[in-house]
């Protein structure tokens, strides 16, 4: 009897332990959201929220007139992210398909770990590459005077998103049951047709998830874009103009801003906008994943 109740006690203790662990992650998330929300609200005592989101000019330290408009930064953030996805998605899926379907197993054994090592390169190092290597090349190719622009940022973010996209896409291609491919080949389809029309559609949920994760990385990345995009706060005129992303702006200004001023609160408001955007991206990817999984079943 005594033994029984001890076992029961142990069981409920273990249950409580895992429950606390699970709830902790949620609490941290809610905590961060609340912190951002409460620290950004005071900003809107002095800034009109509509102006904050629609105005193109950001100049809180101006000696003439202080301006708090983040539209240019939102557009810039989306520009580099879009550019990165345009480069990284076709390339990433191509590499994943090569590794899973074409490459000799020896090649795969060597290539896959190398791709994963790419994910571990610090962002400062990649930013440095952008300054000394890609900058001059971009300036030469596009005939502009310098390479500190959105194209450079996009290329570097693509490099950083590639390992995620390749690794997860390859895993999901490998997870497609062999029977699918065998049936397709038995029906007379070529290997190319099998890959494009059977295997990739079957692995689509994983591939989409990898794209979304890559996108999340690109939106939130700070150091790399800070180093290579020139950080000009003007509204971007195109991919060849210098831009300033939301993350770079927070990183540049938070170190110097006097605490508890409108400028300080406004930086947290930018953080809140960033948080909401990444939250929406994750939500969208979740919904897409569920839709595809339901269709598959």
């Amino acid at each position: 009897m005594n033994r029984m109740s001890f076992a029961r006690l142990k069981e409920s203790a273990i249950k409580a332990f895992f429950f606390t662990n699970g709830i902790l992650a949620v609490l941290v998330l809610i905590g961060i959201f609340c912190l951002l929300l409460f620290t950004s609200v005071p900003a809107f005592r002095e800034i009109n929220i509509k102006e904050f989101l629609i105005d193109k000019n950001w100049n809180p330290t101006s000696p003439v007139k202080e301006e708090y408009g983040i539209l240019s930064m939102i557009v810039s953030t989306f520009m580099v992210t879009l550019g990165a996805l345009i480069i990284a998605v076709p390339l990433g899926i191509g590499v994943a398909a090569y590794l899973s379907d074409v490459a000799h197993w020896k090649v795969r054994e060597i290539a896959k770990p190398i791709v994963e090592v790419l994910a571990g390169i610090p962002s400062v190092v990649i930013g440095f590459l952008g300054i000394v290597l890609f900058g001059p090349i971009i300036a030469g190719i596009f005939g502009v005077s310098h390479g500190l622009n959105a194209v450079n940022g996009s290329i570097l973010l693509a490099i950083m998103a590639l390992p995620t996209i390749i690794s997860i896409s390859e895993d999901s291609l490998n997870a497609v049951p062999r029977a699918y491919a065998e049936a397709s080949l038995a029906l007379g389809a070529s290997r190319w047709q099998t890959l494009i029309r059977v295997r990739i559609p079957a692995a689509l949920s994983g591939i989409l998830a990898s794209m979304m994760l890559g996108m999340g990385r690109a939106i939130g990345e700070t150091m790399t874009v800070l180093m290579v995009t020139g950080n000009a706060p003007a509204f971007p005129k195109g991919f060849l103009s210098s831009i300033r992303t939301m993350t770079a702006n927070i990183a540049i200004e938070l170190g110097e801003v006097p605490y508890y001023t409108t400028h300080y609160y406004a930086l947290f408001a930018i953080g809140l906008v960033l948080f909401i955007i990444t939250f929406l991206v994750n939500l969208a990817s979740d919904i897409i994943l569920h839709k595809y999984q339901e269709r598959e079943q």
Partner: protein
Amino acid sequence: MNFKKLLLVVLVSFGLVFAGSCSIAKQKMIQVKGSDTLVNLVQILAEAYMEKNPKTPIAVLGGGSGTGIAALINGTCDIADHSRPWKEKEINLAKENDVEPRRFIIAVDGVSVIVNESNSVGDLSMDQVGAIYRGQIKNWKEVGGPDKPISLYGRQSNSGTYVFFQEHVLGKKNYSPDMKRMNGNAQIVEGVIQDKASIGYVGVGYVYDTKSGEVRKGLKVLKIANDANSPAYSPLDKAAVDAGKYPVARPLFQSTNGKPNGAILDFIKFETGPEGQNIVEREGFFTIGSSHITENKKNLK
């Protein structure tokens, strides 16, 4: 027996570590923080000082003038390096925190305006430089150069050079939003060397090659005239800067909380004395003049 020995070893080593950390804590480390324009110079001054006084460790950090002043107000550094005077806001904040700043001038900096070597423009007036950085002059041909859109390089808003340039050259107007905001002086120099249509501004110490002592290859230092009718002077022309003829020169400061004493006082005296000023000159800055020396003396009282 074995266990006891082990215990003894552990205890003794703990004791050693404890004693060691105590003796380190007793030695007071002087923390210097602030202006990126000053960080290299002060680092070299600190090394020279520590060679003579090995018992006084000095740590020098950059981060920008605003960062250094904020650190002095928060009490996280002993000396703040800054390349601009204190702002009204900062003085008020210091008062609220019972910090009484004392300011010392340790060197004079000519902010040099630089362009790519291939640019045919050799001198500009203050008005022209201001208009270029405000975004009113957009093409080099408007100031007698090649037909190329001007590519602007400047610092980020936490930099003292950014504020100094805005006040003295732009007439307290906004920078063009197209100006690229670079992380530091060295990045501006690299950008200007690579970019044929560029213009940038950096502390005068950064235009030299550290090995040869000459102006960096690919770089051209512009001569600046006070207005369209007066002659233009280069910041590399020491006599002109000493005589106050170069229009974009500025004193570089260090601030302490209250009257400095002990090792901090000794270090500041070393910097402003003949040995320190020799280093200042060797590093490409200008030595302090007699008016600066009087002001320093006043702040030591």
